[in-house]
């Protein structure tokens, strides 16, 4: 299934992923090949089949009690920040 470089650009923008122009053709070809391969699923009749999004053996996900738990890792959490300002993560200006 041929994929155009314009499609690669569009989905790369959706994914906030910079793709170098020299690489666009390669990704277009790879995606086309993979999407061509997965086409085989279209031949299968899946009408009336429920989708499986998670294999949970019929059990509902177990939730913990909704209680306040101490979490005192502010400095550790901020320690990995590429840029911080006091107790905040710093990002380029948004507005």
């Amino acid at each position, binding site marked *: 299934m041929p994929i155009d470089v314009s499609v690669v650009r569009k989905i790369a923008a959706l994914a906030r992923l910079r793709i170098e122009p020299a690489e666009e053709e390669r990704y277009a070809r790879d995606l086309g090949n993979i999407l061509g391969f997965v086409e085989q699923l279209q031949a299968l009749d899946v009408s009336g089949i429920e989708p499986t999004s998670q294999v949970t053996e019929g059990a509902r996900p177990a939730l913990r009690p909704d209680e306040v738990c101490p979490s005192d890792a502010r400095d550790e959490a901020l320690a*990995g920040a590429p840029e911080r300002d006091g107790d905040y993560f710093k990002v380029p200006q948004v507005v």
Partner: protein
Amino acid sequence: MSAAENRSIVLESAEALAASVRSGARSALEVARAFLAQADRTAPKLETYLHRMPESALRDAEAVDRKRAAGETLGPLAGVPIALKDNICVRGVPTTCGSKILEGYRPPYDAHVVERLRSADAVLIGKTNCDEFAMGSSTENSAYRVTKNPWDLDRVPGGSSGGSAATVAAREAPLSLGSDTGGSVRQPAAFCGVYGLKPTYGAVSRYGLVAFASSLDQIGPFARSARDTALVQNVICGRDARDTTSRADARPIDLEALEKEITGLRVGVPRAILDEAGDGLAPSIRASFEAAISAFERVGAKIVDVALPHAKYAIATYYLIAPAEASSNLARYDGVRYGVRRADGDLRGMYEATRGAGFGREVKRRILLGTYALSAGYYDAYYLRAQKVRTLIRKDFLDALAAADSLLLPITPTPAFKIGEKTDDPLAMYLNDIFSIPASLAGVPALSFPASFDAAGLPIGLQLVGRPFDEGTMLRVARAYEREHDAASRVPAIVTAAEGGAR
């Protein structure tokens, strides 16, 4: 400590090492030193680790020895060194997932499995190399290094948990943990000649495992025997409130029950799946598979034919579901809270530049594929359809496992391939996963066990698949095979090569 004494320590089972530390026959410190010395010799050649932890390992070992001296009861992994795939968080220890985007990241917490290993008195010795974000089948997608197969340094160890498999095969560690999303524990285990278990989905908490495809990811152990595999699985399994999918249903495996004969146990053989691999299936794998069937018959198992009619759709299903989930999970790497940042004008420019520079080619490919499969207009045709096919695949397994106690399948179509052989063709790399992916989609437990060696001396693994939360039966079947053919006892030449003399 002499080289000979170290040698005898690194060849021992985890079970025997823990017993000797508990009894005081050996100290945890001498055990840790022996494995660290072994890794000093072989790890630089095999490139098994991204980060070794010799100082903390020695400290942890001394702490175990002090506990014993104080009369405290030691845990089931007393003084046993264990290596962790680099996508499992250890507080304060670099965790990169083989990616440049997490360079310098040190998690502020321990993964649940790490807490469990510590309370079992295991000794953490390092973070092993892997394909970037666990995406790959050869460990060649690591942004940092290419791990070599201990049996042939020109070949891959498999992936994505290649470092964890290779380090156990090379006797640098008696145990390790990896993660298996579509075969990433089982396939490298087969390539390296060790045991690799993918537990039932929900058996082991993923808290502190860096997420790849959350409906599939499962942490699992590598070991050199069925008993050692059970030993570590018993330590890591169980309910943890911080992973809502984790369940209390995992039954502890009774190690002594693994010694029971398997007379009358039904081993299901889905023969048609071998034909799906076509010419891609190496004659050596087919021969090993047939020999294993005969071996199981000889020890009294009943061989039954089963069918997995939708397993042939598993690769296509997986390569929609896993990338879709990955594209969502990997949205968190944005250069704000951890890892690297590339500034480029505004916030959006920073996101795009950071992700463009931080992710490698395979990760980008999967993010693009997953974003495409989830995007408006394609969701129903791709992602939703794949989830429906997943239902059919799971039903196949549950039906087959009603007719059989365990299923026997190959795990890889070939023994370990050469480094560089498949890097240019992503689809060819994906097709390797034909035997590992179906059980992942079904969420059932699966075990790769060392079965034999090919004429070139490369290990061949085979796969057993079990009923949900019944890892024990699979391991009992594998143990029955192991009693007849202990393929895991063969030692790679790099381990026994004279001090400093190995290539």
